[in-house]
């Protein structure tokens, strides 16, 4: 029941995000979708992921997008692609979704009783991150640092060259 509500919320937000004409409205709907997805994560018992989803996507990514929107003064042509390519795109998307849904529906591997709720305490996640996944964690840290520096450089670059 709850799952259906949150799933509906998520999909509605996603659809609004890609179809609204106003970019800021799009981002706000995107935030709705993210929040709905976080709720779904919580329902699935992934507490950490749920909160991380809100912290990262709502608190950081969405805000970043908002900043970008405000920094790139748009010329008002929020328009869609040309009618032909729009039709083609819609067709392809429907085809992709159709095949996916059909695959899920027809898969026999999925038809077994749901197992009991697995444990994912913070303790376990922390231990896993620090022990088994220590190297990936460091790589991610490195990647984020590189991205931070890279993004700052790309975005600052022009400002200094300008007279």
């Amino acid at each position: 029941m709850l799952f259906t509500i949150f799933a509906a919320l998520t999909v509605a937000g996603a659809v609004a995000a890609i179809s609204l004409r106003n970019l800021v409205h799009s981002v706000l709907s995107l935030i709705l979708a993210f929040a709905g997805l976080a709720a779904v994560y919580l329902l699935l018992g992934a507490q950490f992921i749920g909160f991380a989803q809100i912290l990262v996507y709502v608190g950081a990514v969405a805000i970043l997008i908002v900043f970008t929107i405000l920094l790139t003064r748009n010329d008002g042509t929020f328009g869609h692609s040309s009618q032909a390519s729009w039709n083609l795109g819609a067709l392809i998307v429907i085809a992709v979704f159709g095949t996916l849904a059909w695959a899920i529906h027809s898969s026999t591997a999925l038809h077994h009783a749901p197992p009991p709720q697995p444990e994912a305490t913070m303790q376990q996640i922390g231990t896993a991150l620090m022990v088994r996944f220590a190297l990936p964690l460091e790589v991610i840290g490195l990647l984020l640092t590189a991205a931070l520096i890279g993004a700052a450089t790309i975005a600052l670059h022009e400002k200094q060259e300008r007279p």
Partner: protein
Amino acid sequence: MTPLSSCLLLSSLLFSVGFAGVLMRRNAILILIGIELMLNAANLNFIAFWRYGSAPEALTGVMFVIFSIGVAAAEAAVGLALIISIYRHRKTTQIDRMNSMRG
């Protein structure tokens, strides 16, 4: 409908919506939004398979999503910085006008 397949269905729906955004919009920022949606759909898949799959105590799905979120954050930061940079050059965020590399 088992819980797993409903999760997967939601995820595929989300993915398709994101894909539609990428295919059908011309604004770079909206395309980025679409990509984020697709990534989130993938994350949902991981979580769903962790929840209902075998050996959940290994936490592989959760770990994968943690790293995926990290990568997505980096990707968003760099992508948006690129958009800003391109906007400075060409005064547009419409992706079909960014075609100076075209042969």
